[in-house]
């Protein structure tokens, strides 16, 4: 019983991070209809940039998150403008765009490795004191992460529902033609959407690296599977689905790790992903119409 609660607790922590990343990934799909596999490499980039700020420049964690998020945000928006959008507009097939994002991710990863060296790294941040809440056993850092992720999700929700921009983003994702007839400049809105999702990506990368004991250039690649599983579970393109999906994936993979073997955590995420795609592609929040549009091709 104790193990169960502890595991669930850790699962909530891990799931919070997955949610944060998955929301960014799903927003990019929702607004541009692109499975951006380079997202994982951007997570890695964020981790390494954060390392430079924390370890070399001796920033504390919070400003680092902010700065790195901004950098990755801008890079993501640029990535869409320079690569994925033009390629899709030129008549690139879905597979061509996917392969382009995959290779972009690989290239970015190798650029990082060539500059940083292949060894593993650790953030110079304290682990935080352990806190016991009932049977939950978490470090203070992890609790802050859960809280922070929740706060960010709330902020994002506020953005989507209460701001002009957020509503424009939703409109563009749901029906670009009608959005245009409302006067929305969908290209600009798309740029901002990639900026924001890139910022989420950046924040996730830094926090992920800070809360892992060691990491190397494969950090983002592995984590990508969890984020995609979460996004698909929640319904691709649905931010709220990604939030819930992240928690579900986090808890279930931790449970798998605790009761079967830690090596099977990735497999659990993968199984969730494949089962969803084969049996329930629509996902939790996806509408029949959007799923049909996106999956039957």
């Amino acid at each position, binding site marked *: 019983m104790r193990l169960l609660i502890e595991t669930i607790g850790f699962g909530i922590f891990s799931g919070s991070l997955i949610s944060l990343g998955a929301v960014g990934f799903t927003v990019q799909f929702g607004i541009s209809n692109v499975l951006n596999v380079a997202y994982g490499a951007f997570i890695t980039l964020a981790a390494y940039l954060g390392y430079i700020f924390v370890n070399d420049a001796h920033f504390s964690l919070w400003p680092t998150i902010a700065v790195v998020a901004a950098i990755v945000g801008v890079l993501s928006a640029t990535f869409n403008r320079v690569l994925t959008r033009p390629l899709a507009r030129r008549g690139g097939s879905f597979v061509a765009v996917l392969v382009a994002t995959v290779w972009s991710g690989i290239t970015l990863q190798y650029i990082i490795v060539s500059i940083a060296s292949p060894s593993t790294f650790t953030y110079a941040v304290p682990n935080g004191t352990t806190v016991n809440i009932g049977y939950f056993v978490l470090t203070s850092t992890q609790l802050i992460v859960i809280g922070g992720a929740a706060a960010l999700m709330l902020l994002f929700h506020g953005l989507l529902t209460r701001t002009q921009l957020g509503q424009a983003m939703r409109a563009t994702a749901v029906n670009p033609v*009608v959005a245009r007839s409302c006067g929305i400049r969908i290209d600009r809105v798309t740029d901002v959407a990639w900026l924001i999702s890139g910022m989420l990506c950046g924040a996730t990368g830094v926090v992920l690296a800070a809360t892992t004991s060691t990491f190397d250039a494969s950090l983002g690649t592995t984590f990508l599977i969890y984020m995609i599983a979460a996004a698909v579970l929640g319904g691709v393109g649905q931010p709220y689905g990604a939030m819930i999906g992240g928690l579900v994936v986090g808890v279930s993979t931790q449970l798998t790790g605790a009761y079967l073997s830690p090596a099977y955590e990735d497999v659990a995420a993968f199984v969730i992903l494949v089962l969803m795609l084969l049996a329930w592609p629509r996902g939790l929040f996806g509408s029949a119409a959007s799923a049909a549009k996106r999956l039957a091709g």
Partner: protein
Amino acid sequence: MSADGARAAARARHATGTRTVKMEQTSITRDAEGTTTRLTTEKLVAGYGDVSIVNGIDIEVASGKLVVVVGPNGAGKSTLLKAILGLVKITGGEVLLDGEQITRRPLEDLARAGVGYVPQGDAVFDSMRVRENLEMGGYLLEKRLRAERMEAALELFPDLRSKLKRYVGTMSGGERRMTAVARAMMLAPRVLLLDEPTAGLSATLTKAVLQGQARMLADRGTAVLLVEQKARAALELADWAYVMVHGRVAMSAPGRTVLDDPEMGEIFLGGGASLLDSAEASK
């Protein structure tokens, strides 16, 4: 006020490219205004790839008038609307709004210029509520004006008032239509383009939509250009009608005239040829 003066005033008022459209009036129809807006096309040619579907069309719609474009399938009616809105490649001719060139102008700029559009089929934000749909319609407006416009829209379509919180995807076809048109009216368009608004609706609902949305708005001053497959219902209410066949205007006359024309059945059931020939001859 001279025509030029009116045009200048209109242009000054509807400055394009500005995010917040400052329009003094809160009413979303044109009752209060004295000026007339005119949307015309001149020898418009448009199509997909190397195929021209619209083959030299001259039409005109003015404030307070309901103008209807009817014709058999494949005639190019929807393509005509899309061409006016810059959604389809234009290879010849012009589109003018009050004398100003708007050929090929992007849709989002046309919205700022006062051209409203309700596309065929999927014309609403399904996963959003009615209120949010209306708010999206008023995206360009500043908050106060948007609230006032929404009130005005609900006065035009009181049925929506009780449904503001509902998700549009869960509503019936007629209600979704209504939401779509209300959304378009939020920007108080000078010209409203409707593409087959009654597609998939029953006969009674069709009448209700055409009367309660298209005709009513025209009566209140908006210039309404309506493309319809269900010719009879539309022609009964139209001030003017264009019959399109094979990408050309085969007949251009008041709605009633077209409706009563004994050859109308011919046009729709295959015999457009003679009408086309006489249209050609009379040019």
